[in-house]
């Protein structure tokens, strides 16, 4: 069942990627090759952007699936661990200090921010903390990073820096190059690999913490794998594209009914579906006519995600989930 789903998602991606390359402010007609600068648009703008959408979407989808398995809750989102706000805080500081002018330093700052949030999370949650304490620690880090970001914005040295920060935080794949693809891909793939390795333990956790331990799960190892896996995927994503929410929440939820519902069988299909969703959403952002530029991907997904989340909550209240 799972293999068939993976094949279907792969086939959808194989169809969607070339189509996505054609859409944008300049539509490229494959049967009329005389479009001006088509090669440049494809190779330098659209292809890296599509590649980034695939990588980031895969990371967000996989981390959402693992996160929901870890917290045993379909409403969980990778953002809950406070790693995304940590990475965003790092990026904001790079704007604040002016280091963002150097193209390599922004993602480096963001990765350091993600790494610090991961270390803080591991430190607070401790060795015997349990999942509830772990989640609360994540929420605390999240609000701390949020407060520090607001502080940095309110104290920003120039109005230009402030507008740069605010725009960057909205999350987008516009104007990204192969460099960003090169930064995000290894971290994201490593993160997905770590989350796949956590799959068996997440399956056992379906039965609760005590039963999982009785099945041989080492809770400390699982916690370390989760911090590393979520940190790498989410940290890399924020580092190159800003905060893109709700993918990690929506995708596993949509994919779950198509699998046998074990967390481990959800990770790879969620990665593929996340890639597909982000690719489609980014295309939509490119082609929507909007005065003054294009719709920001982060905003578009929040607009999609919030009603989705609300619907999920209402269904849960009725006991249908």
């Amino acid at each position, binding site marked *: 069942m799972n293999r068939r789903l993976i094949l279907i998602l792969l086939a959808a991606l194989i169809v969607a990627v070339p189509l996505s390359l054609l859409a944008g402010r300049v539509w490229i007609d494959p049967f009329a090759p005389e479009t001006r600068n088509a090669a440049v648009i494809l190779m330098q703008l659209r292809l890296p952007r599509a590649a980034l959408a695939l990588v980031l979407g895969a990371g967000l989808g996989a981390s959402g699936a693992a996160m929901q398995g870890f917290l045993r809750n379909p409403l969980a989102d990778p953002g809950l661990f406070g790693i995304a706000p940590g990475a965003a805080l790092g990026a904001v500081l790079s704007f604040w200090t002016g280091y963002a002018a150097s193209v390599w330093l922004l993602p480096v700052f963001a990765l350091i921010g993600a790494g610090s949030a991961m270390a803080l999370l591991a430190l607070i949650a401790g060795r015997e903390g349990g999942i509830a304490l772990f989640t609360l620690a994540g929420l605390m880090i999240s609000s701390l990073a949020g407060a520090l970001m607001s502080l940095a914005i309110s104290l920003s040295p120039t109005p230009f820096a402030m507008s740069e920060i605010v725009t960057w935080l909205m999350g987008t794949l516009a104007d990204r190059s192969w460099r960003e693809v090169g930064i995000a891909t290894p971290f994201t793939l490593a993160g997905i690999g770590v989350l796949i390795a956590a799959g068996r333990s997440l399956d056992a956790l*379906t*039965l*609760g913490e005590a*039963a999982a331990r*009785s099945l*041989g*799960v080492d809770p400390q190892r699982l916690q370390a794998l989760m911090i590393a896996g979520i940190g790498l995927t989410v940290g890399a994503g924020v580092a190159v594209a800003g905060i893109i929410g709700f993918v990690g929440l929506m995708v596993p939820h949509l994919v779950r009914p198509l699998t046998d*519902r074990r967390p481990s069988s959800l990770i790879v299909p969620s990665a593929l579906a996340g890639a597909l969703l982000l690719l489609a959403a980014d295309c939509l952002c490119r082609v929507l006519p909007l005065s003054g530029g294009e719709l920001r991907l982060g905003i578009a997904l929040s607009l999609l995600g919030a009603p989705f989340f609300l619907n999920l909550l209402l269904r849960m209240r009725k006991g249908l989930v």
Partner: protein
Amino acid sequence: MSLQTLDLGVKDRIADLTVMLHLGEVTAICGPNGAGKSTLLSCLAGLQPPDRGHVALGGQPMAGLHPETRARAIGYLPQAPEVAWDLSVEVLVSLGRLPWRGVPGSEAQVAIDEAIAAMDLDALRHRRVSQLSGGERARTLMARVLATGPGWLLADEPLASLDLAHAAALLACFRRQAVLGRGVVLVLHDLAMAMNHADRVIVLDRGRLVADGAPEFALGADVVERVWGCPARWVGEPGARALSVG
């Protein structure tokens, strides 16, 4: 792995307590609330180390065992077991194979099929957990433990949420497993169930071992009165006794 005994010597929370459990027996752990029953079971399952003393499995210290080796030997059914995702019966039962990493899929499938058959769940194999009745759910969770193929079955108040018929059916399952040579250890609140169905009863009170032996002795009226604090007497025939309280 051959297991003959499971020793426990725990101090402090469970004071000066030494028990040795045997394969092929149904042992019930009884006691009032806060007596340390779940703590004892959790120590025996290797889920928490005793404050002092040690737990051994077949002569080997539990603390030194690899978690997966321990998980293959001891099946544990927690109190009020949860199932986070709406799995099918077959997939839920297959979770019992998690400690057997690297074992061929065909072998795992045989174990899963046997566990499903043993709990009479063949017709429900593809049904989702949310669609099961309380009794069917209890049997499914039991099949999950059996799929591991453990030498020991430890369950914390497995009958708590079951009606009379389902409780009796589940107890019969535990009895069958003991006859097949497994060691069964149950935390039981219902003293009549323990009296009628256990081979041996361990009575705890505030962390102390009060009685350990055949049910007629360990759950004698005097013990019940002393430990539970209410006058009681057993009525009925052996094997079908009821406790009259007050």
